[in-house]
C-alpha cells in the first residue's frame, strides 16, 4: 500500500474507534427509566425554603440546607417520656417548665436565637409558667437556642 493509503486507513480506524466510544444519546426507554429512578429517589416534599437572601446576596447568611427539613420538625416522639428532646444539658428543665400547659411538640417546631427564646420565656411566665430562677432560666435559654436555634445544629 502507498503511504497515502496507510494514512487513510489510520484515519478510518480512528473514526471507527471514536464512534465506538463516542457518547451516544440515551434511548427513549433509557431516559424513561431514569425519570422513574428519579421519582423513586424523591424526598417527598418540595423545598419551599427561600434559597436566596436579598440581604446577603453573596450567600453568607443562607440557612443551612437542613434548616426546617421535615426530619428536623418531626423529631417529636410521643412514645418517649421526653418527647424526643435531644438529650443534652437542660432537657429535663425544658420538659419540666414547658410541658405544664402544652406539649413539647410546639417547642420543637421553633427555631430562634437566644434573644427570641428569652422573650418567649417572659411571655410564658405572663401566661402562668412558674418563673424560673436566674440560673435555670439561663440554662433553659442555652438549651433551647443550642438545640432549636435560628441555625439548626450540625447533624
Amino acid at each position, binding site marked *: 500500500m502507498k503511504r497515502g493509503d496507510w494514512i487513510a486507513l489510520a484515519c478510518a480506524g480512528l473514526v471507527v474507534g471514536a464512534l465506538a466510544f463516542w457518547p451516544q444519546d440515551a434511548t427513549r426507554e433509557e431516559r424513561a427509566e431514569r*425519570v422513574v429512578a428519579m421519582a423513586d429517589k424523591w424526598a417527598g416534599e418540595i423545598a419551599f425554603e427561600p434559597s436566596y*437572601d436579598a*440581604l446577603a446576596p453573596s450567600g453568607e447568611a443562607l440557612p443551612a440546607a437542613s434548616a426546617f427539613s421535615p426530619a428536623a420538625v418531626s423529631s417529636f416522639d410521643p412514645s418517649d417520656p421526653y418527647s424526643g428532646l435531644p438529650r443534652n444539658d437542660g432537657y429535663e428543665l425544658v420538659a419540666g417548665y414547658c410541658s405544664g400547659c*402544652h406539649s413539647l411538640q*410546639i417547642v420543637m*417546631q421553633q427555631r430562634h436565637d437566644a434573644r427570641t427564646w428569652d422573650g418567649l420565656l417572659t411571655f410564658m411566665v405572663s*401566661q*402562668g409558667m412558674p418563673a424560673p430562677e436566674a440560673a435555670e432560666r439561663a440554662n433553659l435559654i442555652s438549651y433551647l437556642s443550642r438545640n432549636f436555634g435560628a441555625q439548626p445544629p450540625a447533624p
Partner: protein
Amino acid sequence: MSGSPTRRALLAGGAALPLVGTAEAQEGAKAGLAALGDRPLVQETPPHLLDEEATPAARFFVRNNGQVPEIPAAVEGWRLRIDGEVERPLDLTLAQLKRDFESATLRLVIECAGNGRRFFRPAASGNQWTFGGVGCADWTGVRLRDVLQRAGVKRSAVYTGHYGADAHLSGDPQKTAISRGVPIAKALEAHTLIAWAMNGADMPVMNGHPLRLIVPGWPGSCSQKWLTRIWVRDREHDGEKMAQYRMPAYPVAPGTEVPESDMEIIESMPVKSLITFPPTGARVRFGGALDVRGHAWSGDVEVAHVDVSIDFGATWTRASLAPAANRYAWRRFRASVRPPEQGYYEIWARATDAQGRAQPASPPGWNPHGYCNNQQHRVAVFVT
C-alpha cells in the same frame, strides 16, 4: 373528571406526604391530618385532602388555643349573651337562636392567619403551618347582624369582643384562652354568622360545637369557637390575643424588632389558592393532557383569576374559574396542561384579586409573628 385517565394513572403513584407528627391518640383528633401540636390539638389538612367543593368535617383543620370545653349532651340550652353597648342585653339559648331568627346557610372559608408561617426566615414563633390551615364548609346559623339588631346596637358601639367556653391552657380561671373581635361594620356584614351546623350536621367539638362565629375573609381567630358571649365595645377590643394578630404598619426587613406601637390588627386576608389535584409526588403517564384543579379565595376583595405554570413560573396558563357559591366561598379553578417531555415538573398556581394583587412566588413581607403568607402553592409531578 374523576374518571379521567390521568386520575387513574395517578392513583398508582400516590403521594408521599410529610407528616409533622400524628395526634391520632388524642381525643377528637382527625385521622389523616398533620398534627402541629397534640396539646393543645392543632392539625392541618394536606392540600390533596381539600379537593371537595365543601370541606368535610373530618378534614377541616383544627386550631385550639385553650383547653377543649366539656360539651353537654343536650346543647339546646347552650347560652349566648349579647351585652355592652346595646339597648337590650340578650341572653339567648341555642333553641331560641334557631327558633327566633331567620337561619342562613353559606359556604365560607376559614383560614388561620398563620397559615404558611413555616416559610418565613428568620422563623416566626408559633405553630409552623404549611398550607393546610384552611377549609371551606357550608355553615348554617343566624346572621350576627340580626342578633345585634335585636339587641339594638348603640351609637357608641365600635367593636365586638368574642368569648368562648374554652379555659386558658394554664387552667387559671382568671385568664382567657383567646378573645378577639372585629369592628362593628364587619360584625354587621350579611356573611358574618353565628353557626351551629357544618355541612348540614353538628360540627365536630374541635371545630366549635355547639356554637361558633364565622367571620369570613378575616383571620380564623375572629371566628370564636364554643361561643358564649359577644361584648359590644365602645372601643377597640383589648381581649386576649388582640395584641398578637398584628402586622407591621410599614414593610420591615426580615428579623426587625417592631415596637408594639407600630403593629396594626390584621383585617382582610390576602388572595390565595391551593392545588388539590394532582397530589404532590404524583406520577402521570407521558402523553396527553394533565388536569389540574384547586380552589382560590380571598378576604374582602374578590378573586379575579387564577394562572397555572408547569415551567417554574416562566409561562402561565389561565385557569377556568367557577363562580362562587356565595361571597367568601372559595372558587374552583381548573386547568389542563401538557408536559412537553418526561421528567420532573412543578405545578404552580397563582391567584390574583380584583385589585390586581397576585400571590408572590416566595413569602411576602416578613413580619414578627409570621402572618399572611400567601405565597404560591406548588405540587411536584413526575411525568414517566
